[in-house]
């Protein structure tokens, strides 16, 4: 099981964030963020609530606008140019805390929508791709149901499949298990582990420390809008450097 976290990472750069700053009004959310993600890396971002971890990954696919510094995704510089934003978004998949499936469409339609309209994939082919990924997340039999008829865990797996249908090169996870009942967390994490094994570049905001140990090759700790510490999981958990990290770990691992 430690194999995944030891998996090789390529030298190719997937995401490069340089001196990035963001403000909400006058509130400085992200301060001088520098982060380079190589292809195939699996990064877990953790930190206390309000530390800017979600905002950070939401800046990567421009769901949030940053005001200073640069973000380069797959060689495309993120600017206010809508074209660049759409290019980046179709290369970067994202899963949300509350799944955000489209409730008026069936599971299959949820999965085929973006390939058909953004990638211009023929409908038949898009459906085949969708079924392939639904099988991968182990719910092909739900294809004709509506999201409202599925459990939380199933919905999150559909959300992962929906992102995968766009064949993204990078996946962002924004607290994917926080809104789930405890017994459903495992099924979602299993899906994510499988994805990691296939070499997907992943950035994951989560408090599942077991998952971080098992899958991540790097854990990033954020506090007050800054990256306070980053290290390999083993080192991060056994030998935290900053006091803030120690306090945080003692709080979440103490119980």
């Amino acid at each position, binding site marked *: 099981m430690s194999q995944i976290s030891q998996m090789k990472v390529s030298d190719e750069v997937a995401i490069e964030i340089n001196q990035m700053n963001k403000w909400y009004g006058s509130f400085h959310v992200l301060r001088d963020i520098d982060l380079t993600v190589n292809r195939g890396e699996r990064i877990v971002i953790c930190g206390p609530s309000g530390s800017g971890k979600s905002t950070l990954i939401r800046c990567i*696919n421009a*769901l949030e606008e940053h005001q200073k510094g640069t973000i380069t995704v797959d060689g495309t510089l993120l600017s206010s140019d809508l*074209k660049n934003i759409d290019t980046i978004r179709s290369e970067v998949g994202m899963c949300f805390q509350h799944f955000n499936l*489209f409730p008026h469409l069936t599971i299959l339609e949820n999965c085929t*929508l973006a390939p058909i309209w953004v990638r211009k994939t023929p409908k038949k082919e898009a459906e085949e791709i969708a079924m392939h990924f639904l099988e991968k997340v182990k719910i092909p039999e739900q294809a004709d149901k509506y999201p409202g008829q599925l459990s939380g865990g199933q919905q999150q797996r559909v959300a992962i499949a929906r*992102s995968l249908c*766009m064949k993204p090169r990078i996946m962002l996870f924004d607290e994917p298990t926080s809104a789930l009942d405890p017994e459903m967390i495992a099924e979602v994490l299993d899906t994510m582990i499988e994805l990691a094994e296939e070499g997907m570049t992943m950035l994951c905001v989560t408090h599942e420390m077991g998952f971080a140990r098992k899958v991540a090759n790097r854990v990033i700790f954020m506090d007050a809008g800054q990256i306070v510490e980053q290290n390999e999981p083993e080192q991060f958990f056994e030998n935290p450097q900053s006091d803030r990290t120690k306090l945080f770990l003692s709080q979440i691992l103490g119980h």
Partner: protein
Amino acid sequence: MSDTNAQSVAFVRNSEIPASPPPLGETGPVKWMRENLFSGWVNSVMTVIAFLLIARFIMGVFPWFWNGVWDASSIKDCRNIMADAGTAGSACFAVLVDRWDHLLFGFKYPATEYWRPTLAFVLLVVCAMPALFAMYLPRKLLIATALYPFVAYWLIWGGSLWVPVVILGLLAVTAAIYLFIEGLSVSLRQAVAGIVGALSGIGLGYLLYLGAQELWFISGNVSAGEGIVSTVAGFVFMIAAIFTYAFFIPMGIFVGYAIYNSYEDGGLVTIVTTLFSLYALMVYGLGPISAAINSVVPIELEAVASRDMGGYMLCMILGTVCVSLSIPLGVVLALGRQSNMPLIKGVCVVFIEFIRGVPLITLLFVANVMLAYFFPPESSIDLILRVIIMITAFSAAYIAEVIRGGLAALPKGQYEAADSLGLNYTQATRLIILPQALKISIPGIVNVAVGLFKDTTLVSVISMFDIVGMIRGPIQQSTDWISIYWEVYLFAAAVFFVVCYSISQYSQWLERQLQTGHR
């Protein structure tokens, strides 16, 4: 074995008890009555009183209705018949028979042509089906729905068949122009957009010049009586006129150049260019082309002028056209109000707030009387068209606010999910946002639509003879049917109720169809 266990064992049953019927009086009408009508002495007394009142009402109304006279030539005649039969004071439905055509079509529509609006009505019901029941009928049938307005226009107003046909043709040409521009390379499109921008800039400047000139003359005419204010206004407009006259050509070129520069690959300019071509084609092409074809192959129905429309037909025309126009316009306004672009947002907010702040009757008076002052004397826009514009604007503002509620009810996550998948604004709006927002808004939209349909009777105050106008005017003022109230207004209420109740039932059915589990 513990004590508690020993005790509970005594209560365990070994065999299943078969289900038995409930005691009498616990099911069926007896139970229902006991629970709902006689659950206590207060309720029992109320029930009895209510039944007595209902019985009294029915006993009063039923003879009036049942003994009604259906065959008489005037109210006097009616009363004589009733006096002879000993049923004085009963209903005189003969007015409905006598004035049936007038109630339905107004008193000026040529009697020989009644089949045309009737056919148009039947076709309306048939052609609306593919749109109303789109999920059960093949999509191809929607062609009938799309063609219906042209057919109905020709049937009701008459004239040359070639007018609606040429309009259709011009629409097809415009679609071809759209596809042509879409297919051009980016630089060519830029050039086309620049030229069209320049032309429309020049055109706009020229229109401004004409308008300023017109206003100068108007204010010049009234200034003698109206004093200094209009003189100053006229002077300002004259300056504006000279300014625009001198500058509309450079202005046009500037607009064209600005578009050429800022235009990248977006569809907006393509759409504007296409609309511009459509406008030009309609203004300069429609009349001559349809006249030319008609002189070769004349296919004509007797033309009926707009002022000759009346009765329930007029309500149906106004209701159908205004509802079907105001929903799309309302969607556009609601989306515009949410726009990030200050100009678009501002225009939509001002429009909505202005229209909502003004009573419909004033808008109708504007349509009837005031608009004539704003246009040159020789240009006369059809009265029905003016009324349609006003009612549509009115209800579109309300529908926009209803839809805004629907848009606000959508979780932010839906927008984010659509964005994160790489859908652009148009796709996200069309595929994700609107289907959900409109579904939430159905009850509100139907509310406005039903209200609008009933408000069409307000046109009677600007001396148009819709069904209420017919009753208040030609029927009640005639010597034959003077002072007849209940029968005619009941009839009007009934025909409106049928349509409004059907709309309401349809919307409830539609809501059930669109139900897809919780949210």
